[in-house]
Each structure stands twice: as structure tokens, then as C-alpha cells.
């Protein structure tokens, strides 16, 4: 069992699901002949044919709308957004159609919309976004974002098998990152949607995070260990629904919380998680809940600008030190 990248793990999950279940099919821009902008689906067309690996026009609404219709009829579509930024083009179909269908007309839409998200690769304003907050306020959708190859394979399988529409975010800075390669079992396993993972146990401060920021948190935790601050790192994995119990349990243990995400600050996941902690664990808190996030601007292009924009290890260190002083 060789160690594989996050991209290979997602690929493996998709491939296995298509082998296992002939209702599963892929559609998206350049995913067939070209193999996908990130080569996620290279070789799929040859193996599964053009009925199950559909090259589409540049038409995100039609892609996701057609996925909705096909899912209603019992198929299991997986739609690719070439970059997750382009999901805004089908915002209407996702929020008004897919998210409401079960509630309105009792027709479930078991569909996955997946794509590369996130910055740090100098992609500029339209190839670097994290879009979860756009959808966090939409009951009826689910959202997941794996940080490890093991989770990536298990979550993509769980997403495909889920009875409701799932948005699957893949941080492109992790796609081929050799440092996070992992041995991933060939077995058919899933990582359940809605369950967080404790990446590092600690007593003093909980850092609640997900995606690429898990690694920022881990690096900060190593540094803070030297200063005698013991950090717990919670990797949410699922953003909607998020693991309320795991968050509250960790807060009850440490009494201090940093919420860390790469998405911008205002109206982000951190605000919602803060409210949840206030509702469920206020009396356990021993300091303000702190947010470490990107700043409230579009994602800038030039490296120094993007670095300033995104949360860095130092930002976590600063927040942790000030929180530790309470």
C-alpha cells in the first residue's frame, strides 16, 4: 500500500464508486477527453465511456441543474466545478432548487458537486476562493472538506452515497502536496458526514479548523508546545452539518477556543461556531472566542498580498498567546 496524495485519494474514491455502482456518473467541463483541469478524471473516459464521463459546455447552471434532474430519477451524478469559484454561476440551482427539493416536493437529490477550492497558490480573485459561507445559510445542502487523503477517499464515497446534495471542497494546495501523502486502504470504507476528527489532543486551547488550515494549526501547535501551551486541533471535515458534540466536548475540556479558517471573516463559519459555543458551553469558557481568518477582501494575486490576506502560523501563535494569558 503506497502513500498517495489527496488528489489521488479522491480519484480513487470516485473510481471505486463508479466501479461499484453504475448509477454513478460524472459531468463537468473538460473532465473527459482532457482529463480535468487538475487531471482528477484522467483515464475515466477510457474506462467508463462517454455516457458516464460527460464533457459539458461551460454552463454551470445546466451542469448542476441536469445533475438535479438525473439524481431525482435515481442516478448518482457527481458534477465538477473546474474551480469551486465558479459555483457562484449555479448558486440559484443549488440554493433554490437542489436544497429545497426534498422539503418542498419530497424528492431527494443525491448529487455531489465537487471542485478545487482555496488559495495560497497565487490564483487570484477567481481561482482561490473558499465558498462555504455562501452555502452555510442554506438548509438542505451538506458541505464537506477533507484535509487528509484517508478522509478524502472516505468522504467522497460518503458524499456519493448520501441521499442529499453534498458540496465537496478540495483544497488545491493539498492536491499534490507530498508532505500530506498517506497510505490509504484499498478497502471500501466511508468517513461519515457530520463527524469531526481530533488531530491533536491538548489541554489548554482548542483550535477548531478544517481543510488546509489543519496544517497551519498543527504547525502552530508544535511551536506553542515549546512555550508550554498545549493545543487541541479539531478538524471539522464536515462543515454542514458540523459536529456540534465534538466542538462542545473540546471546549468543555480546554475552555479556550480559536476558530481558524481560510475563508474571509465576516459572516464566515467562525461566527456561526462562536454562536454554537455560546449556546452550548458558555459557562465553560475562560476567555473570548477568537477568530483567525482571511481578511475581508477579495483574494489578492501577488504573493505578498495573498500571504497578508491568508491566516499564517504566526497569526495563530499570536491569538493563542493572548488567549493563554486569560
Amino acid at each position, binding site marked *: 500500500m503506497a502513500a498517495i496524495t489527496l488528489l489521488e485519494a479522491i480519484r480513487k474514491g470516485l473510481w471505486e464508486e463508479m466501479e461499484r455502482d453504475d448509477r454513478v456518473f460524472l459531468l463537468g467541463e473538460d473532465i473527459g477527453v482532457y482529463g480535468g483541469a487538475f487531471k482528477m478524471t484522467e483515464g475515466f473516459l477510457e474506462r467508463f465511456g462517454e455516457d458516464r464521463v*460527460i464533457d459539458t459546455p461551460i*454552463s454551470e447552471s445546466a451542469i448542476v*441543474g441536469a445533475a438535479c434532474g438525473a439524481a431525482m430519477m435515481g442516478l448518482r451524478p457527481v458534477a465538477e466545478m473546474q474551480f469551486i469559484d465558479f459555483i457562484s454561476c449555479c448558486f440559484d440551482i443549488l440554493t433554490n432548487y437542489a436544497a429545497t427539493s*426534498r422539503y418542498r*416536493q419530497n424528492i431527494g437529490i443525491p448529487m455531489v458537486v465537487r471542485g478545487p477550492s482555496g488559495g495560497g497558490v497565487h490564483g487570484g480573485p477567481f481561482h482561490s476562493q473558499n465558498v462555504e459561507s455562501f452555502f452555510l445559510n442554506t438548509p438542505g445542502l451538506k458541505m464537506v472538506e477533507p484535509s487528509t487523503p484517508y478522509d478524502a477517499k472516505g468522504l467522497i464515497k460518503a458524499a456519493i452515497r448520501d441521499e442529499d446534495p453534498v458540496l465537496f471542497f478540495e483544497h488545491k494546495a493539498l492536491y499534490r502536496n507530498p508532505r500530506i501523502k498517506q497510505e490509504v486502504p484499498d478497502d471500501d470504507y466511508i468517513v461519515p458526514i457530520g463527524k469531526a476528527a481530533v488531530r491533536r489532543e491538548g489541554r489548554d486551547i482548542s483550535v477548531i479548523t478544517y481543510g488546509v488550515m489543519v496544517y497551519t494549526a498543527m504547525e502552530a501547535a508544535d511551536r506553542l508546545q515549546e512555550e508550554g501551551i498545549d493545543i487541541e486541533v479539531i478538524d471539522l471535515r464536515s462543515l454542514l452539518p458540523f459536529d456540534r458534540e465534538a466542538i462542545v466536548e473540546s471546549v468543555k475540556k480546554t475552555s479556550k477556543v480559536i476558530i481558524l479558517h481560510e475563508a474571509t471573516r465576516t459572516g464566515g463559519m467562525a461566527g456561526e461556531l462562536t454562536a454554537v459555543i455560546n449556546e452550548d458551553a458558555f459557562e465553560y469558557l475562560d476567555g473570548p472566542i477568537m477568530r483567525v481568518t482571511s481578511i475581508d477582501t477579495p483574494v489578492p494575486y501577488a504573493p505578498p498580498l495573498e500571504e497578508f490576506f491568508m491566516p499564517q502560523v504566526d497569526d495563530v501563535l499570536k491569538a493563542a498567546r493572548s488567549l493563554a494569558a486569560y
Partner: protein
Amino acid sequence: MIRYPAFDPPEYIDWQADPRLVEEFARTIERDAGRKEIVSALDHKRLLSLYEGLVRNRLHDIMLKRWVKQGVISKAWLGTGEEATTIGAIHALDRSAASDGRPTDFVAPMIRNAGACHEMGMTVTDMLRGYLGTEDSPTRGRDLHIGDFQKGVIAPISHVGDIMAVTAGIALAFKLRREPRVALTWIGDGSAKAGVFHEAMNMAAVQRLPLIVILQNNQVALGTRLDQHHRASFLDWPAAYGVEGAAMDGNNVLDVYAAVKVAARHCREGQGPFLLIAETFRMGGHATHDEREARQTFAAELFERWGKRDPLGLFETYLIEGTMDLENGRRARKTGSPRERNLEVLKRVEERVTSEVEAAAEEALSSARTKMPRPEQAAEGVYAEHSRSSAQQASGIVF
């Protein structure tokens, strides 16, 4: 049929068939050889069933309008004047059960195509319950846009263009499974201006999907006249997308029937989508609340002109004055015109449907008295598994 001065558009109240339009009605269905053949193959039962569908659609809408006047509901979106485009289309589809137990063909109506619901087999009772939001309505009170998946009806949503893409997806599922089934949707001259129409039409063309799109040009987008929001001819659109297309008379139920029949055959044979252009006219407002504005939007002559083309009145006249004896389907010889007998047959149909709609209204109102959803049911059914977070919110657990 009986006209209802309190609810019908003024042009319909003393409706008399204009001989020129009756003649045109007959000419229209003979213009195209293929359509002519399809229409002439219709027996008296099929013709009566089309008539019954039109009457049901009209009476359903009249009941809603009555409810608005009585204050039972606040407004309703009616298909008055456009019924033929709905009813003719449904009757041309294959409504027999496929191997999955659902109808062979699927439809995705706009709210103005409510007639699609009852002609696909939903009861008028359920449709009226939809407006009342009862627990036993098709959406259990969650929405007044109704459908029934088991009966092949996808519920409308207000972002009308979206349905184009979703219906294309239904057609995609048929294609991928190699099932000879067809998906049909309607779109207005207004909603066809949403970008998703273009995306879905083009993708359906590229994928050669068994999708019928009826562009229902009722000359108005809510309160904006066609000439304010449209420049080209809709008839040029099919060629622009590289799909088969044709015009049909949206107020002639037989022309619609035949045109959709041709389109369905084309789709079933795997030849890709079919875009039908139906000219018709909305004889009321966008909904019941803005009928006055609609009268201000258009010149009175336009209402007058289209009012004479009442799809129900024209078809009824065609049947009454025709040579077919509606009692038994025989063609009359030179002697013994079946006129009087036909009048009697149509009257019986109308009486039956009137009773059906009145009983449906009674039943629906009874549901409204005894079967409204419990408030906490608002929190159910967002996800396949009961959502913990919404349940928790519903139980009022906050700090």
C-alpha cells in the same frame, strides 16, 4: 360551456364563436400533413377527453378565483386563455406506467400550466389543498407549487428558468438508461430570457436529449410586454440551437396535441430535443391581484382579439359543429347532423367535471378545517435523516 360573469374575463362572458376563427381552427389542423393525420386518428373518446381536460383546467382556475373573492386565499396564478397549450401537450404524451411504476413521460409545468397536474392524474382536491397549505396537500403545506413524482409531475419553482435544466437532467437519465421516455417542460416568453434557458437548451442539443420544450409565448413577462423584452423571432431559436422546432397554435388544442405528438416521436427515436413555439395570450393578470394592471399594460383590442380565440370555446364549437357523433364516434352522413346530440354529450362532460371540482373544493376546505400541519412540522424533512440541528432549534434549546 357555462360562462361565469363574476370570474371569467369580460371577453368570455357572452362568448360567441366567430365563424372566421372557427374556420381557421379547422384549417390550422389540416395545414401540416403529419399533424393532420394525427388529428384525424383521434376517436370520439380522445376528443372528449381533451375537452374534459380543458373544462377541468378552466373550472379549477375559476374555483381559485372564487376563493380569492371569498377571501379563502389571497391570490392565484391562472392559466385562463392558455389552457390548450397545457392540455393538448399532456394528452400527446405517454402517460402509461413504465417499469418503475411511474408514467413513461415526465412533465415539469410552470404554475400557469396547473392543468398538467390534473391531466397527469393528480386529483383536483390535492391541487386545491396545495393552495390551502394543508397537511394532506402534496407538499404537506411547505409550498403552493405542487407536483407528484409518482405521477410524473415535477413541481414548479418561481425561478422558472431553472426547471429547463432540471428537466434536461430527467431527459439525461432517460437517455443514459436507454429508456424510450420523454421529458417535457414549458417556459414563458419572459422566463426564456434567463441565462439558464440558454445553457440548458444548448446542453440538451449537444447531448441529444429526449426533451420537449414548449415556449409558451403569452405576450407578457409579468407586467412587461413582449415588445419591451424581446427583439428576435422565437421561430429562429430552434435553428440557433441546432434542434428541431416548429410553431403551433397555442389556442388550438388539437394543433398543440398533434405538434407535441410529432415532437415526442422525434425525441423517442433518439433524435434530440424539440423546441415548440406556442403563441397564446394571458387573459388575466400575472396573478389574480393585478388584473387591472394587465388591462393597462395592453390595448383593449388585444384582449378583444385573443378573447375571441378562447381555446375552450373554439374547440367546443369545432366539436359541436363537426360531423363526428360524439356519442358513438360515427361520422354523420349528409342527413342527421349530430349537433344536438353533441351539445348534450358535451354538457354531460361539463356537468360531471363541475361536480368533480365542486366536490374537490369541499374536500379541500374540509382539510383546511381539520388537517392543517402542526407548527413543529416546519422543522421536518430538510434532509433524508432527521436533521439534528433543525430539530434542536425546533425544540427551543438555546442558551
